């Protein structure tokens, strides 16, 4: 481990040839030190994440073990081009006669339902969690006597493991459970098409809103109190303060929080896997893409599962990219608005 001090900014007048050379050497040494310090992390991530992902993409173009219709023997492997991708995207299943549309009940036929479910859950839960989280954050940001109790309480849903949350809501939404008893209804939450979906949404909103509220609260605390003071002096109402000060100044923190949550919701697995088993409706009303991958692995169709997990990865990557592009543009818009707020002062 060599020196860790960053190089002093060079002063053109004083720098001699020797001085410039020593600065250059210093900079090289710092770069070397940095990469030596980063090396363990880079190696671990390359071996545990990088290598398997590359392997997965290669495997997704290989055929799974299957019964060869011509010979009647089990055959394994072999390059099959895009067959595994067509299985998911076009619902093509291989049959003795070639390829045909997958029958209802085949996992391939559930792909678009699972994609819809994943996006539906993501959009609804993130929207609900943002709105409720914003409300919670604003309350938590106020000064009152039991603020400590409030801040402790919101950490409780966050601390409960998702698998336990799923079991808890399985009990709450049971046919003889507390929700049906309180509302005086007889909904079978695990089986109904939309009831099962909303059971997932309610459970996820309960579990994750506190996390959202904490992220938003951290953003709120960056807004200086005198901004509000000045607005009040100028006669701004509370509603005006919220829409003209809080929201514009909160936008950067809000964008980051929504991005984090969106990418997290797109990989949702624990809740639907335990709460509904992915079922409801015709059997796949709450199946997410992650559940579909696990089911395909349990079918021992590992290469086909590799194709699906590659598709899932590309979807998540695409959403993240879009987000940064679209909301990045909005971010600059937000800065313009905050300049206007500064003008109010």
């Amino acid at each position: 481990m060599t020196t860790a001090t960053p190089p002093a900014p060079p002063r053109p007048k004083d720098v001699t040839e020797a001085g410039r050379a020593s600065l250059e050497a210093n900079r090289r040494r710092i770069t070397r030190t940095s990469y030596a310090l980063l090396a363990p992390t880079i190696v671990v991530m390359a071996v545990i994440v990088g290598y398997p992902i590359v392997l997965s993409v290669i495997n997704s173009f290989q055929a799974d073990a299957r019964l060869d219709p011509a010979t009647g023997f089990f055959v394994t492997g072999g390059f099959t081009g895009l067959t595994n991708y067509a299985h998911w995207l076009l619902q093509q299943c291989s049959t003795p006669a070639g390829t045909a549309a997958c029958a209802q009940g085949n996992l391939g036929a559930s792909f678009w339902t699972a994609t819809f479910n994943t996006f539906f859950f993501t959009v609804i839960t993130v929207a609900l969690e943002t709105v409720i989280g914003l409300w919670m954050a604003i309350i938590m940001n106020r000064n009152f006597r039991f603020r400590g109790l409030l801040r402790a309480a919101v950490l409780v849903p966050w601390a409960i493991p998702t698998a336990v949350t799923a079991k808890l809501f399985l009990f709450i939404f049971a046919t003889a459970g507390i929700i049906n008893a309180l509302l005086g209804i007889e909904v079978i939450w695990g089986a109904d098409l939309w009831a099962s979906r909303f059971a997932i949404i309610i459970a996820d909103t309960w579990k994750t809103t506190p996390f959202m509220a904490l992220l938003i609260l951290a953003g709120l605390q960056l807004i200086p109190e005198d901004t509000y003071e000045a607005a009040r002096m100028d006669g701004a109402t509370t509603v005006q303060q919220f829409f003209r000060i809080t929201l514009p100044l909160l936008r950067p923190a809000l964008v980051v929080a929504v991005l984090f949550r969106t990418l997290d919701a797109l990989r949702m697995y624990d809740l639907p896997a335990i709460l509904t088993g992915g079922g409801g409706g015709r059997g796949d009303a709450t199946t997410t893409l992650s559940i579909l991958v696990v089911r395909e692995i349990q079918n021992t169709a590992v290469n086909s599962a590799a194709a699906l997990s590659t598709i899932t990865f590309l979807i998540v990557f695409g959403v993240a990219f879009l987000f940064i592009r679209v909301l990045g543009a909005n971010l600059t818009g937000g800065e313009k608005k905050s300049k206007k707020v500064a003008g109010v002062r």
Partner: protein
Amino acid sequence: MTTVAGPTTAAAERPVFDDRAASRVRARRRRAAGSSVRTGIQAALIVIWCLLPAYWMLITGFRRSDTVYETTLLPTTPTFDNFIQAFNPARNQLGRALLNSFGIGVLVTVIALVVGVSAAYAIARLNFPGKGLIMGAVLGASMFPGVALLTPLFSLFTQLNWQGSYQSLIIPYIAGALPLTVWTLNSFFREMPWELEEAARIDGCTAAQAFRIVILPLAAPAVFTTAILAFIGSWNEYLLASVLSNTQTQTVTVAIGNFVGSQPREIPYATTMAAGSVVTIPLIILVLIFQRRIVAGLTAGGVKG
């Protein structure tokens, strides 16, 4: 779900009395009292919303399995039987699963921290070409969908005959904890008083000594917070564990997911809720003790990143 204090404020600002200052003060006080009541009501709503389901889980653990659906706030015939049943090794492996989760969590946390501290130090403290790319890669890796890793790891571990082994969980968990560790530590490290390190260097310490003697003790709270977050992440993981573990190596989340009751075909709600409380209460105690630090750690990457 309104957050605004109400439309009365503008009117209250225009005093009609002679003593304008006094009336303004009075109006502000009245408004403050009104808004603090409203804040209190809303805060109470949030506390109830957050705690009621958790309370329901805890209290259901004390109900008898034949009265598990009763809607009273306290069990009419309280029993401790569910907690004993949850640990009954003939049916459920909760005790073993607790040990597994604890062991795996500690190992993963220690390894991720040892590897991650030096990387976070380099990112926070040193300027080097490619830093932006590295930070992007770290953030990208923490957003990575678990299923994309599950499939290839499943094939790899099958080939290696590692199915149901501890390392088949520990290894991917490290990869999951590491980016988060680096990211959180980095945002903590950026706020450290680095002048102290420079002072130590001037006094004759080497860079490694300065880091070990001066910075590491100061960074201990940050490292500890990051450790708690990494441990909770590992403790709560379900997707990989549900596919890659067996009955011997299963973690608590998998054990609870597969809970079976005393009667076949019956969903053992009371026992499951008891087990859920057992699994959750240590976490909640940990979180409440280190509340401030955990909130700081959770939000550190989000706001300043």
